[in-house]
């Protein structure tokens, strides 16, 4: 387990380099926005966090289907890795958004459609992790959480498209059509940095899950025999 170089560490290094460069350009080189001034620089961390949070949860959705379809441990490990990463990023996304909202809207929170669907996304997927923690049987844990993720995923496209479908305080999606070219460069660099960082998180968490499962399987016969003795 130790002493062997794993490819994901190169991905982590690349992520840290990209995030450092992207943040530097975003904070020191890119121009301030005409109306929001410097506070708009939160966008260079907020938007990549949002994109990669939704991407991680999309990976969780695909892995959940793979887990239900094949029943293989690897798919379930990918479910855990991507769900946990998605929940962490969504939590950070909500925190950044609240700080930005306080500076621009004058309030920490508003029950706006984008904010509300994002909060629902956080609660739903955090709920999946809580569900997993409450189930002892590895097979049941995998199948129940896969079904829960497929149901919870219905909210993810809503988060992305709601600003176009309904009236919202929140701005529309950040694309080259809505963001100036000088601001797109740090946004893209940070998005790739966040993508590689999330990949590292997902792979590390999935490896941990597989190792935990191995330990569970080796200790299960011992636990069963102890339980049998207690019941006898």
């Amino acid at each position, binding site marked *: *387990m*130790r002493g062997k170089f794993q490819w994901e560490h190169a991905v982590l290094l690349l992520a840290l380099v990209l995030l450092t460069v992207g*943040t530097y350009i975003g*904070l020191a080189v890119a121009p301030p926005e*005409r*109306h*929001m*001034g*410097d*506070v*708009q*620089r*939160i966008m260079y*961390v*907020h938007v990549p*966090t949002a994109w990669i949070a939704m991407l991680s949860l999309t990976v969780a959705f695909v892995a959940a289907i793979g887990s239900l379809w094949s029943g293989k441990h690897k798919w379930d490990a990918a479910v855990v890795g991507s769900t946990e990463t998605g929940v*962490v990023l969504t*939590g*950070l996304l909500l*925190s*950044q958004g609240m*700080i*930005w909202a*306080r*500076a*621009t809207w004058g309030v920490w929170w508003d029950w706006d459609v984008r904010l509300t669907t994002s909060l629902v996304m956080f609660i739903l997927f955090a709920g999946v992790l809580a569900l997993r923690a409450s189930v002892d049987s590895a097979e049941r844990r995998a199948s129940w959480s896969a079904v829960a993720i497929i149901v919870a995923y219905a909210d993810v496209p809503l988060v992305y498209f709601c600003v176009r479908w309904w009236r919202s305080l929140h701005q529309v999606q950040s694309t080259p059509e809505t963001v100036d070219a000088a601001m797109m460069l740090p946004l893209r660099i940070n998005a790739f940095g966040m993508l590689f*960082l999330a990949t590292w*998180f997902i792979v*590390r*968490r999935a490896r*941990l899950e597989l*190792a*935990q499962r191995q*330990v569970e399987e080796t200790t299960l016969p011992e636990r069963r025999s102890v339980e049998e003795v207690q019941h006898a």
Partner: protein
Amino acid sequence: MPDGVIVDGWASVIAAYSVTTVGLIIYAASLWQRRRRLERKQS
């Protein structure tokens, strides 16, 4: 500077980047700690 522009936005920018950095470090540390605990269990 034109009217309506938010001045002194740097405090919010620093807060947002700090929250993100600290959050990511805490999650990475929790993964590392869980790994260590498992390795101890295995040995």
